[in-house]
């Protein structure tokens, strides 16, 4: 395994065998996290079609180590792809809370970003999924093309690489900070 990082020099250089490497914890953990993002399959509307296309052979997000996972317990990334109704928002919040940390949220498309075409007359639509869960990356479009989704995933990978695992100066990526929905709404 060869990782980018500062070269190891000094007295210990060359003292150990080939089986030992030196690096820092942040780099290894962040590298491992960003390279196996397992998205929870959360297709809610037409954006899900583009999300499926991104997972298919033509765009193939398996290149990023992404495997769609049908359970929140074993997924790292929630791709909210589509219109979040108020009825679904309570379920979405519960599924998000079932995910193990670290967990990330990618809001895909206009509806999940800010309500989209339902911003005024949608009596049933949540005006942005960031009303109920903290969002790390917003992907604009109606719906976004698979390239845009993959670009959003790459942006998330960049953010993960900047995360400080042991010395957090501010709320980490994927924490519960920012969620606003009243607790009694989740029954």
């Amino acid at each position, binding site marked *: 395994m060869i990782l980018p990082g500062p070269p190891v020099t000094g007295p210990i250089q060359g003292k150990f065998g080939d089986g030992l490497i030196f690096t820092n914890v942040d780099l290894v953990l962040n590298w491992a996290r960003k390279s196996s993002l397992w998205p929870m399959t959360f297709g809610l509307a037409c954006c899900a079609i583009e999300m499926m296309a991104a997972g298919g052979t033509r765009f193939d997000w398996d290149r990023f180590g992404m495997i769609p996972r049908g359970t929140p317990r074993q997924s790292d990334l929630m791709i909210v792809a589509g219109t979040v109704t108020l009825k679904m928002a309570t379920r979405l919040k519960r599924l998000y809370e079932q995910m193990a940390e670290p967990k990330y949220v990618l809001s895909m498309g206009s509806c999940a970003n800010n309500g989209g075409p339902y911003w005024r007359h949608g009596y049933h639509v949540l005006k*942005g999924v960031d009303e109920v869960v903290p969002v790390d990356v917003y992907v604009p479009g109606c719906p976004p093309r698979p390239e845009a989704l993959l670009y959003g995933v790459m942006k998330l990978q960049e953010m993960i690489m900047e995360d400080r695992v042991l010395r957090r100066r501010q709320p980490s990526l994927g924490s519960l900070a920012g969620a606003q929905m009243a607790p009694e709404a989740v029954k």
Partner: protein
Amino acid sequence: MTPQEIHDALKARFGEAILSFDEKALDPWALVKPEAIAEVAAFVKAEPALGFDNLMCLSAVDWPKETPPRLDVVYHLYSYKHDHTFVLKVQVPRDNPRVPTVEGTWGVANWHEREAFDLYGVVFDGHSDLRRILLPDDWQGHPLRKDWEDPELYNGMRVKPTPQMAERYAAGEKIGVGPFDFTPPNLPLEQS
């Protein structure tokens, strides 16, 4: 059978319960007294010459500005055997919309009537399980009525456009799609 013949058969059987008939409409329709709709439904399905074995659609229409204000319930019928269609309508007062169920005639009416109840508040007397089908069980009101006003909050979630949307709009984000572009809530909608 032509629509006129269907109407004549209904008129001969039910007489005064068939209030009017519009043959010129795209889908010719007959207006039925609300109390009689269940018997009319059973008749048009059982009568061999009519044979309406399929309820294609059951929908409701809100007319708040009519005098008196009313709700229509519309039944689109189709016969696979004879390949003809017909439409039945009933009109009920808006403040007390009660219609007998046709669930006993067409089983599909169960879900259709639940939808009309959910979104328009039409009460179907005799329905076996009249509760909401699309909206959450704790939802208040019937949002496809034309005097519907969005509540501020539903279970702690904002239903109207959020204050943050105005800030995000000012920051350059494009909100809405095509003809539904965002107008900041502090501006009257007519000015935009």
